């Protein structure tokens, strides 16, 4: 019964969507906002990657809200799982020497790759979110490979997460105080185009986002692995 109702509902929705989408031409023109960002983005923000300049500079306030949602999700996950009584030590088999040594060998390189991704966020496809996810995957590798031996330092995670958020907000507020008075105003000189030290505040904020996202996602991984 539920399946029949679901199929009827979906057919109605699909019919409405087909009718409305036929009016929109596919792949021919951009919106005016996109034209503005692409044509003026280089001189206004100095970043080679237009997506980065939209995420961090033009729509930076949205990114702040989005980082807050991630923070709230991590907090909520901790609150939901905190009251569960922990089982006694599960029977875990120690991983073989090859696996644990391989994980320990790969761990710093994965961290380095994540750092590369978020430092070069304004030049190449990449940025704080992707780099943070790669860093979290490095911690996941450590948990899967040598679970009992190595643990994440919890105060370290809390400190890096709070520092990332604070740097983001403080740089945005400085931009509010200096110059043309809007949040995340690019007050640092932009430097030479398409080099590492360019685009003013964008690399700094992306490094902060990278730390924040990386520590939050690894905290989520840690909670889910410990409590299940």
């Amino acid at each position, binding site marked *: 019964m539920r399946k029949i109702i679901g199929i009827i509902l979906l057919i109605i929705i*699909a019919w409405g969507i087909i009718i409305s989408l036929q009016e929109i031409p596919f792949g021919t023109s951009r919106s005016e906002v996109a034209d503005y960002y692409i044509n003026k983005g280089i001189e206004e923000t100095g970043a080679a990657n237009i997506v980065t300049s939209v*995420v961090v500079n033009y729509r930076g306030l949205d990114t702040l809200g989005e980082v807050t949602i991630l923070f709230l999700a991590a907090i909520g*996950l901790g609150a939901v799982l905190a009251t569960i009584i922990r089982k006694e030590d599960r029977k875990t088999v120690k991983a073989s020497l090859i696996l644990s040594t391989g994980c320990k060998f790969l761990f710093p390189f994965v961290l380095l790759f994540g750092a590369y991704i978020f430092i070069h966020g304004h030049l190449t496809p990449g940025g704080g979110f992707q780099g943070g996810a790669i860093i979290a995957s490095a911690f996941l590798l450590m948990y899967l490979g040598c679970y009992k031996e190595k643990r994440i330092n919890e105060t370290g995670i809390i400190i890096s997460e709070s520092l990332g958020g604070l740097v983001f907000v403080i740089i945005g507020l400085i931009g509010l105080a200096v110059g043309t008075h809007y949040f995340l105003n690019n007050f640092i000189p932009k430097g030479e185009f398409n080099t590492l030290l360019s685009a003013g505040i964008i690399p700094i904020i992306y490094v902060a986002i990278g730390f924040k996202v990386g520590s939050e996602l690894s905290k989520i991984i840690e909670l889910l692995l410990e409590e299940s």
Partner: protein
Amino acid sequence: MDFLHNYIYYIGSFGLIFIGIFIMIAKRNYIKVIIGLSILDTGVNLFLISVGYINNGTAPIFSKSAIEAKNMVDPVPQALVLTAIVIGVAVLGLALSLGIRLYKHYGTLNLQKIKEQKW
């Protein structure tokens, strides 16, 4: 055929969205509902990306001076999807933690066997 060629991205993304909604309506297992939510998330992201696509377009990155601005795809949906993916991961983690809690409390993940629910 022309219709397929023009709208293949929309058809694919809405196919994923409808599969996700159907799983969420029809299935009774909580884990399967979460899988449906995840598929729906992917479909929405694909739809947003394909709205901003331009025929024969390039990524909006001025990594070489030879790249022209008029061929670039729309950067706004890409920025939106960039953040939406991370949000999706966080929501997935929260939903899974609720599932752990549900299983510890009721001993089942079948949503019809949980007595106190209203729906």
